[in-house]
């Protein structure tokens, strides 16, 4: 045993030496030959020859030194490398001989590998990749465990309190993205910028491209400085290198540019690229009335940190949890302290930054990765089947090579080289496809309002991924055909052929099962998207435009603000280009909510507190959103501060409170609001979705904006048939006529709602694209196998027909075989699909309005696949009926 081990080691050492020190080995070979020659010459001279005679004789005797050296080299293992070249050359010639096969194989691999690489690129940049900063692995983020989902935003007071916890963090920092208006006018569309703490750039180890970054001293007071992102600097300032110390107007305040950031830095919020960064302490100056910096009740900052040396995640969490009671007292509003005392802070890994799109898209991306992987598997099965069929054609060649003394391993190596050549070519083209595909995916993800920015340029990781895929697929589809081609019974043609058909059939059956899984997923996602976009929202979003205004920025409030809103609503409703218009505090389907407990002494359950969504709206709201008023009336301009309070309730709330009785004229009170007591119900509206597409309808109570003592910021909603630009122009003119400095930007409400289903749209589109790809691959696979079977059975079919079998029977015989295979695939696939649906609870979360094991989808998919099998089998079946018995028999 030891001997064997030593010998193996020797052999490896010898191989390595000769492979890596080829020149050295060659010169040793030369020296040894020369030594031999010299000895030979000496021997001849000793025998009495002259020096010249001896040399000639010795040379003659040695023969061609070059030839020996060649033979020695053979023993040197250099052979392996030259064989590889030979294999590649031969493989290329073979592939060129059958361009049809090569094209189909390379193309399907290119599609499969390209799709996988594109999805992986996105998955990598959204979910997997670490931030391009100093030691990203150390970064941590704080979160608070709550009932529903962990909370990741905190107040500035809490950030400062965490900073003061001893022996914990070296630096605590944050980045808060916000929308800003740039320039003196209010008309410019908002630009995304970010507030950052003074230690932000130092902690992340970012050095500026030009000038300097924001430092701790900038963030000590309200220092109006900013540093620009690279793309913003290029777009807006034409890469002007003398940019520093210039001033830009941000939200009406002059801010001095101190530097430009390097190209590859895009902040710690993955997917969002702030155009510029300003110190966090400048927030009160820029956000004015809406400032959150000093409010303990504003939870708006993600807290990131780099720990002191030696502090692990677990240690940091332990320290924080121990300090939690005192942190709570120090940094939280007394009202929140009670609720939060039972919660605990957690420390999570922040090496990949934080990201809004990661939350939305990581699950769809993982699913799409799985789906595209399945497509690649199906493509591999197809190529394996094609290779098997080719093996039969090449049997003669392979048998000859084996007979001439090539070892089985040698032939195997040759065949595998061919497979890897195919997969390599597929991967190369796939990589070319992947790049534009991932850019397309990014644009699919991008919201209307905010462009998602992701770095999807192929890097080393992407290249390695594609290479790995090429190797794996090459081995996967190449191994079985190569093994069967070189098996011992290679000369035993009939048996091999039978085995091939069996193996080929198994491949097609597994293709059908895989594509069944894939098509079911595609069907589920498509129907989810349909359900989301075709549900009855209770209003019609088409032709509605909304935008946000906040005149409080200009110091207008209370009565003045209420009057301003009244004026604005009047003017909007008298504008000829707009059909109807209104104001509302909350946008419907906005995923943001205002909910309160209601009570009504006149209801069926007078003691019960009923939680309901709330909204403050102006007259015309229901007409603008086309939510029908079922009973009573809409708010009118007279429902103002001088008149009794009025409310409109939706059908669901009315039914809960008053049953079938007429709710008009009854009264409700909002428990938490002393201004909304005993409000008379004047109207009953149809149920409408307030919370979001996936949330469905909740109880809703509407109150009049014109009766609100302290109105807040407001949503303008208008309905118009005119185009977006015209609507924007007229609304901006009207807003400026009542509040000259207030910026307003309208956007299509339909598009905003569309954004809510954007990840569902992405998943539906891509999964169906992959489904289509899978079906075509299965179709090709079945067709190929059936054609092969028919060709092989030409003789048998000929005899059958000679004996009087009718065309219809022959056709059915072939067709039945295809259908049986599809049936077998479906029979295996359905239980797998049901099991998957049970195991993947996350799948159910992604669906809307149907179950993961939805029988209709499963049944439709099965029928579709049977149809595909019939189509794929029809042509070969038809060809079988055209067989001339005499020709067939002669052929045999």
């Amino acid at each position, binding site marked *: 045993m030891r*001997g*064997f081990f*030593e*010998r*193996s080691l*020797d*052999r490896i050492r*010898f*191989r390595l030496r000769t492979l890596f020190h080829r020149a050295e080995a060659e010169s*040793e*070979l030369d*020296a*040894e*030959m020369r*030594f*031999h020659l*010299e*000895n*030979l010459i*000496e021997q001849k001279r000793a025998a009495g020859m002259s020096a010249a005679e001896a040399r000639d004789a010795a040379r003659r*005797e*040695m*023969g061609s030194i070059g*030839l*020996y050296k060649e*033979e*020695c080299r*053979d*023993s*040197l*293992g250099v052979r392996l490398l030259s064989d590889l070249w030979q294999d590649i050359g031969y493989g290329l010639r073979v592939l060129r001989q059958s361009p049809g096969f090569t094209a189909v194989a390379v193309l399907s691999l290119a599609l499969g590998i390209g799709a996988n690489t594109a999805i992986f690129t996105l998955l990598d940049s959204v979910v997997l990749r670490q931030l391009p900063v100093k030691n990203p692995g150390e970064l941590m983020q704080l979160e608070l465990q709550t009932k529903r989902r962990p909370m990741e935003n905190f107040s500035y007071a809490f950030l400062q309190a965490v900073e003061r916890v001893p022996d914990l963090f070296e630096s605590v920092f944050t980045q808060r993205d916000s929308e800003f208006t740039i320039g003196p006018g209010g008309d410019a569309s908002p630009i995304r910028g970010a507030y950052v703490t003074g230690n932000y750039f130092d902690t992340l180890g970012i050095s500026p491209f030009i000038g300097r970054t924001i430092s701790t001293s900038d963030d000590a007071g309200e220092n109006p400085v900013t540093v620009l992102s690279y793309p913003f600097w290029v777009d807006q300032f034409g890469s002007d290198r003398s940019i520093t110390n210039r001033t830009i107007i941000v939200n009406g305040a002059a801010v001095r540019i101190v530097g430009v950031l390097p190209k590859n830095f895009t902040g710690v919020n993955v997917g969002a690229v702030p155009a510029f960064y300003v110190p966090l302490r400048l927030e009160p100056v820029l956000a004015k009335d809406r400032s959150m910096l000093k409010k303990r009740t504003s939870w708006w900052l993600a807290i990131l940190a780099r720990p002191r040396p030696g502090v692990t995640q677990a240690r940091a969490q332990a320290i924080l949890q121990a300090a939690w009671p005192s942190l709570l007292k120090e940094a939280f509003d007394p009202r929140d302290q009670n609720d939060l005392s039972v919660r605990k802070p957690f420390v999570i890994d922040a090496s990949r930054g934080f990201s809004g799109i990661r939350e939305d898209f990581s699950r769809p991306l993982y699913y799409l990765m799985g789906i595209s992987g399945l497509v690649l598997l199906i493509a591999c099965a197809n190529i394996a089947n094609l290779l098997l069929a080719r093996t039969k054609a090449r049997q003669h060649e392979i048998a000859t090579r084996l007979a001439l003394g090539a070892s089985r391993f040698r032939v195997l190596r040759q065949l595998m080289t061919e497979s890897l050549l195919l997969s390599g070519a597929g991967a190369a083209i796939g990589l070319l496809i992947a790049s534009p595909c991932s850019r397309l995916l990014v644009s699919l993800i991008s919201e209307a309002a905010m462009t998602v920015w992701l770095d999807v340029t192929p890097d080393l990781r992407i290249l390695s991924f594609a290479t790995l895929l090429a190797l794996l697929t090459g081995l996967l589809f190449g191994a079985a055909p190569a093994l069967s081609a070189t098996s011992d019974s290679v000369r035993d043609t009939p048996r091999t052929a039978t085995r091939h058909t069996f193996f080929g059939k198994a491949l097609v059956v597994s293709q059908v099962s895989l594509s069944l899984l894939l098509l079911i997923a595609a069907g589920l996602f498509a129907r989810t998207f349909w359900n989301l976009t075709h549900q009855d929202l209770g209003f019609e979003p088409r032709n509605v435009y909304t935008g946000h205004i906040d005149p409080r920025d200009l110091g207008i409030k209370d009565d003045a603000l209420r009057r301003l809103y009244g004026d604005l609503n009047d003017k909007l409703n008298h504008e000829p280009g707009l059909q109807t218009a209104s104001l509302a505090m909350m946008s419907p389907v906005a995923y943001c909510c205002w909910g309160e407990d209601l009570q009504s002494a006149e209801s069926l359950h007078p003691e019960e507190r009923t939680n309901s969504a709330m909204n403050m709206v102006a007259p015309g709201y229901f007409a603008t959103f086309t939510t029908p008023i079922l009973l009573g009336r809409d708010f009118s301009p007279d429902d103002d501060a001088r008149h009794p309070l009025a409310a409109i309730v939706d059908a669901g709330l009315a039914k809960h409170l008053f049953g079938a009785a007429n709710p008009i004229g009854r009264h409700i009170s909002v428990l938490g609001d002393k201004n909304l007591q005993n409000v008379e119900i004047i109207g009953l509206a149809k149920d409408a979705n307030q919370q979001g597409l996936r949330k469905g309808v909740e109880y809703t109570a509407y109150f009049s904006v014109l009766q609100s003592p302290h109105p807040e910021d407001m949503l303008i909603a208008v309905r118009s048939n005119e185009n977006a630009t015209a609507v924007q122009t007229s609304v901006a003119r009207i807003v400026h006529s009542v509040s000259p400095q207030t910026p307003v930007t309208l956007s299509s409400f339909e598009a905003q709602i569309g954004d809510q289903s954007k990840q569902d749209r992405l998943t539906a589109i891509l999964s169906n694209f992959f489904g289509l790809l899978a079906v075509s691959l299965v179709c090709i696979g079945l067709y190929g196998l059936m054609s092969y079977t028919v060709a092989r059975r030409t003789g048998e079919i000929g005899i059958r027909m000679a004996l009087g079998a009718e065309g219809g029977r022959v056709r059915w015989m072939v067709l039945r075989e295809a259908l049986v295979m599809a049936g077998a695939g479906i029979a295996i696939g359905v239980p797998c699909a049901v099991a998957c649906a049970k195991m993947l609870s996350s799948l159910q979360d992604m669906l809307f309005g149907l179950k993961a094991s939805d029988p209709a989808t499963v049944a439709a998919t099965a029928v579709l696949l049977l149809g595909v099998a019939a189509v794929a089998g029809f042509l070969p079946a038809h060809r079988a009926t055209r067989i001339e018995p005499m020709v067939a028999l002669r052929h045999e």
Partner: protein
Amino acid sequence: MKPTDLVQGTLDLLIMRTLALEPMHGWAIAQRIQQISKGVLQVQQGSLYPALYRLEEQGFIQSEWGESENKRKAKFYTLTRAGKQTLEKQIEQWDRLSAAVSLVIREA
């Protein structure tokens, strides 16, 4: 008389047997085989060196550069432990084979 061609495969055996005495360079191996066989077996250089490389690659012998009797640099080959074991087996096989062959030649 034409020197006898070596039966295929026996050259390896002869080389290893020669090296079992002491480490030797290629030239010396050829000379020794010729001497001992009284000139009957002549090792062709064309087959000697490839055989040596093959044996080294298989791990039966090892090589090392040293100085020859006439003070020149030469490559010396040594039998490894694995080589010794293989040699014993091959000698045994050879004995059986040659006995069998001569038996057939005489008796048939």
